[in-house]
């Protein structure tokens, strides 16, 4: 008797196992549960948003390519718009604009401190020009004016450490 005949009755009986089925609809939601658990346990879900974005773009090259093209297009458009704005402006007008060079007032011109060691001599006739830079020695000169140290209160030099004590 061959093995197939010997066990034919058993094999017929074992067919009964194929009829054991889980509740109807069980497999419809099975993969959803698996995927939910995978997403919950995935380190990507715990990482920051930019890591998540990078991971999602990494797996979708077409989407990443689309975003790149869109960004490049916006850059090109922006560059073109800025060029067209520049070409519309009249040449040589930059220097007469007030925010490029401010003309000093009369009080500022005469406020130059000639007694300071860092004072720069300026021709008063030039001070009225908007092209010539206005240099005043009053405020910024104080920062480097060592001659005033010691003459004014609060600017006393600290005594230097002349001896060292080691314990």
């Amino acid at each position, binding site marked *: 008797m061959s093995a197939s005949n010997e066990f034919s009755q058993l094999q017929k009986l074992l067919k*009964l*196992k194929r009829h054991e089925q889980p509740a109807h609809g069980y497999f419809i939601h099975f993969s959803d549960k*698996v*995927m939910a*658990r995978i997403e919950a346990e995935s380190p990507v879900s715990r990482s920051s948003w930019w890591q998540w974005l990078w991971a999602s773009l990494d797996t979708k090259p077409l989407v990443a390519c689309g975003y790149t093209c869109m960004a490049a297009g916006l850059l090109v458009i922006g560059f073109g718009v800025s060029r067209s704005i520049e070409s519309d402006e009249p040449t040589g007008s930059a220097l007469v604009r007030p925010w490029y060079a401010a003309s000093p007032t009369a009080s500022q011109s005469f406020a130059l401190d000639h007694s300071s060691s860092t004072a720069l001599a300026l021709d008063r006739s030039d001070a009225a020009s908007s092209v010539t830079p206005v240099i005043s020695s009053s405020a910024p000169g104080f920062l480097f004016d060592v001659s005033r140290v010691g003459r004014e209160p609060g600017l006393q030099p600290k005594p230097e450490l002349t001896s060292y004590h080691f314990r």
Partner: protein
Amino acid sequence: MSSTALDKAPAPSPAAVASAQSEQSLVHRARNGDLEAYDELVRIYQERIYSAVYHMTANHDDANDLAQDTFIKAYQALKSFKGDSSFFTWVYRIAVNKTINFLKQRRNRMHMSLNDLDFNAEHDADLVALISERTPRREVGLSELQEKLNAAMLKLSDIHRLVITLHDVQGLSHEEIGKIMDCNTGTVRSRLFYARQQMQAYLSDYLK
């Protein structure tokens, strides 16, 4: 998996479910983190994996947990999948290992929680012929037979129950079982023969 599909194709190959190329493509995408591709792989193999685990444990809740754990473990280990075997074989191996480890832990607390028989069981000619002489009420006979059958399977060792499940219940070939169990076909055949002998002895009252 519907019983109709099982009856028509008791030994479906993975290629029947999804072509090798599409499976490779899905696996490749899933390895790169594409969850939609992995979801598709889960849908392709969920019934087979669940069924294998269920027939090993004879418990629906355990089978549910183990089948889910199998797919999660497979996803986490997907980077290490070299493609030496098919994805189908690889996932089956994970399921089998998980199930056997689980069964070792619960050795002393076997508890059957059987799924219901579907409607087609009552119309299966072979089953009807088996029970008609013994039980005048067919429905009761099937339920009783189901319990006896599962109890007999639980008496087998894990390895022998596995080989019976994969071959006689799920219809896998000796070669496929050899790949899953990591042994040659000769070993599969000898294990199958021994397991059938054991089952025949346990169920002698129902097979005369």
